[in-house]
């Protein structure tokens, strides 16, 4: 069964090729069949592979499959080869399964769009690239997938390219993530020049032997990898592209900017965790970046008007949690949160898509309201997603994953109370902005007419994702709540679990930690209710007042990062480009051309056509040359 592994990325790629070549000539049913079907079969294959992997694990809990040698030049060897271990297994399951649900949803959601086959071809290419990324056996193939998802996000963000604003958002995403990609490429070069191999497993073994903890080279390599991860995963200071990326169609936001692509950075760090553990300094940088990001993005999410931008900032903030977990060495907690986040964030985006489409492409939450009665189905599914995002205790998947992260941060040797408080504040902000969104959209006065698309293919993905976001946490429960640890046990072979500092009174402290987290998220909901439903005029008054308004604008603009980058990078660059348009070096070339032109004009004057004049010149020339020859 494991031999079917290569089909998992190959099927979406084949779907992409078919759609690119035959797409415009196919009927919409055909396009939908190929586009969603290829990912669907790929998901089924992933299921089969994982059943066989869990049922009879291969030696060393890792399976690798080499398809063909890609390149082999004087020692540089890279194969097209895939490696399957528990980490990549979880990734491919989430990618194919959530990806398939989103494709199924798009079949109906994008039906009216003229770029139907183009849309599905990009989506298929995206899924194929992402699968290549997570299955890659060597860093070069991983980089191929890494660039592939970058390309697809550019194509899909600018999908409605007729609006120049969308094209701008696509370019911004491409350029900002490219900054990270350059860092990653430099990191890969650094590792290759030292170890002469690109094979990830081999590399990790060698570098744990050869490099000492905290050595300069290890720190440099880790920081370069971290740069790549920050770009892709939209962490401070490279987070500015993600909110603008909401220009793309909603299923794109769900697939790329919530469920899969932005977690590529998390995957990269988890995959190279042996390298990261070599540098405690860089590890604390990861944790601090995560904590800062989750707070900044949480505050920004609190003041957005656009429902998709709230979700975008919430994605940044949740990935901040994953980085926080990675930074304190809680690898499997980060991957666990990734999985649950993929479920509920895809659910929230798809629900938001239905809401937006039902209101005639209205995205401003302040023009929505009272949709609870008009769209009951979407209300309940959205509520499930929102509950999971704000980690309401016991019944939601988000509670278990976030609680897992926070308790690990608290107990980890490299964690600490400060990071834990940041995470806790983030949890409060999360439930505050999530339920602000719920109350603004679904409660209050009804403001507009609704035209709901009741198609089944929109509803089925929502139902499945609702079930997954509510129950997705039961693979891993804290010791006080049953102590299930399927997930960490499964991950054990790839990702070492954390050794808590004080394990003797762990039970009691864990219980109090859970109660604190639960209370904080419930408090967030209560505050959201008070501020945005009961006393809305008070909140609006604060937002209008001097200091409050300033803060509101500041947060709403994403802490002014765009403004800052515009001032210190974009404008100076444009200025240099403008100045350099006729630069000195160009003047030399332009001058040469000008002087040759003038000389040519001068010489062409002698071409008079007068025969006797020519003869005189001939005689004159002869006299000059003879005189020269005689005089020398």
């Amino acid at each position, binding site marked *: 069964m494991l031999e079917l592994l290569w089909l998992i990325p190959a099927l979406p790629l084949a779907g992409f090729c078919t759609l690119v070549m035959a797409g415009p000539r196919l009927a919409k049913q055909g396009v939908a069949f190929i586009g969603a079907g290829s990912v669907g079969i790929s998901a089924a294959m992933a299921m089969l592979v994982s059943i066989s992997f869990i049922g009879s694990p291969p030696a060393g809990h890792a399976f690798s499959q080499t398809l063909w040698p890609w390149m082999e030049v004087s020692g540089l060897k890279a194969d097209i080869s895939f490696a399957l271990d528990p980490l990549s297994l979880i990734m491919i399951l989430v990618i194919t399964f959530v990806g398939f649900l989103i494709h199924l949803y798009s079949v109906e959601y994008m039906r009216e769009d003229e770029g139907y086959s183009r849309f599905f071809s990009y989506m298929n290419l995206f899924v194929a690239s992402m699968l290549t990324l997570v299955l890659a056996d060597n860093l070069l193939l991983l980089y191929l997938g890494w660039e592939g998802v970058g390309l697809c996000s550019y194509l899909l963000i600018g999908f409605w390219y007729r609006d120049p604003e969308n094209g701008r958002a696509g370019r911004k995403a491409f350029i900002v993530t490219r900054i990270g990609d350059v860092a990653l490429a430099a990191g890969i070069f650094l590792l290759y020049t030292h170890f002469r191999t690109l094979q990830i497993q081999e590399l990790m073994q060698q570098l744990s032997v050869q490099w000492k903890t905290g050595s300069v080279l290890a720190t440099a390599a880790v920081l370069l990898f971290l740069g790549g991860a920050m770009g892709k995963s939209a962490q401070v200071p490279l987070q500015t592209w993600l909110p603008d990326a909401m220009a793309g169609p909603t299923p794109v936001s769900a697939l790329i900017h919530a469920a899969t692509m932005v977690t590529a950075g998390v995957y990269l760090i988890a995959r190279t965790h042996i390298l990261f553990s070599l540098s405690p300094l860089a590890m604390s940088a990861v944790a601090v970046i995560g904590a800062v990001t989750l707070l900044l993005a949480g505050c920004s999410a609190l003041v957005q008007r656009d429902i998709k931008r709230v979700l975008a900032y919430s994605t940044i903030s949740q990935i901040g949690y994953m980085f926080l977990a990675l930074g304190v060495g809680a690898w499997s907690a980060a991957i666990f949160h990734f999985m649950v986040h993929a479920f509920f964030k895809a659910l929230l985006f798809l629900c938001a898509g239905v809401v937006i489409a039902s209101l005639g492409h209205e995205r401003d939450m302040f023009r929505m309201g009272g949709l609870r009665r008009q769209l009951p189905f979407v209300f309940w599914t959205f509520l499930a997603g929102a509950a999971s995002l704000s980690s309401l205790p016991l019944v939601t998947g988000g509670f278990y994953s976030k609680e897992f992260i926070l308790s690990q941060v608290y107990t980890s040797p490299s964690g600490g109370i400060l990071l834990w408080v940041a995470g806790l504040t983030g949890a409060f902000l999360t439930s505050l902005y999530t339920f602000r969104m719920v109350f603004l959209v679904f409660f209050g006065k009804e403001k507009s007419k609704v035209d709901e698309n009741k198609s089944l293919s929109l509803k089925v993905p929502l139902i499945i994702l609702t079930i997954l976001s509510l129950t997705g946490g039961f693979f891993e429960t804290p010791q006080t709540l049953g102590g299930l640890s399927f997930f960490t046990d499964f991950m054990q072979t790839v990702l070492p679990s954390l050794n808590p500092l004080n394990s003797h009174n762990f039970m009691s402290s864990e219980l109090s930690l859970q109660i604190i987290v639960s209370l904080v998220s419930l408090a967030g909901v209560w505050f959201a209710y008070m501020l945005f439903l009961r006393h809305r005029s008070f909140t609006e008054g604060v937002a209008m007042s001097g200091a409050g308004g300033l803060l509101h604008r500041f947060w709403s603009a994403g802490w002014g990062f765009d403004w800052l980058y515009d001032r210190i990078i974009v404008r100076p660059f444009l200025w240099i480009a403008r100045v350099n348009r006729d630069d000195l070096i160009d003047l030399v070339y332009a001058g040469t051309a000008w002087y040759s032109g003038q000389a040519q004009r001068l010489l062409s004057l002698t*071409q008079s*056509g007068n*025969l*006797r004049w020519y*003869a*005189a010149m001939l*005689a004159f020339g002869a006299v000059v040359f003879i005189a020269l020859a005689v005089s020398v």
Partner: protein
Amino acid sequence: MNSVSGEFCLLLAGVLFALGLTGVLIRRNIIFILMSVEIMLNAAGLAFVVAAARWHEPDGQVMFIFILAMAAAEVSVGLALVLRFFRCFGTLDADAAGRMRD
């Protein structure tokens, strides 16, 4: 033969050559230009003959035979061109061909 010195003969050749060149430059009639070219050729030939007599070498006279042969060929081609020229322009004025340019 001793009455005519080598220097005098070379001077004569130079004067003849200058006359021919002047004719080429100032004459507009294409037939006269051709005749002036002949004078220049023969002036050069004369210089060769004088040089051959001065050093008692036959090479200069051989060169003169060459010049004669070449001049005959040149005149035949030149006269043919003059005929074509006259057919084309209806005149023998060399400057009439100046409108070739541009």
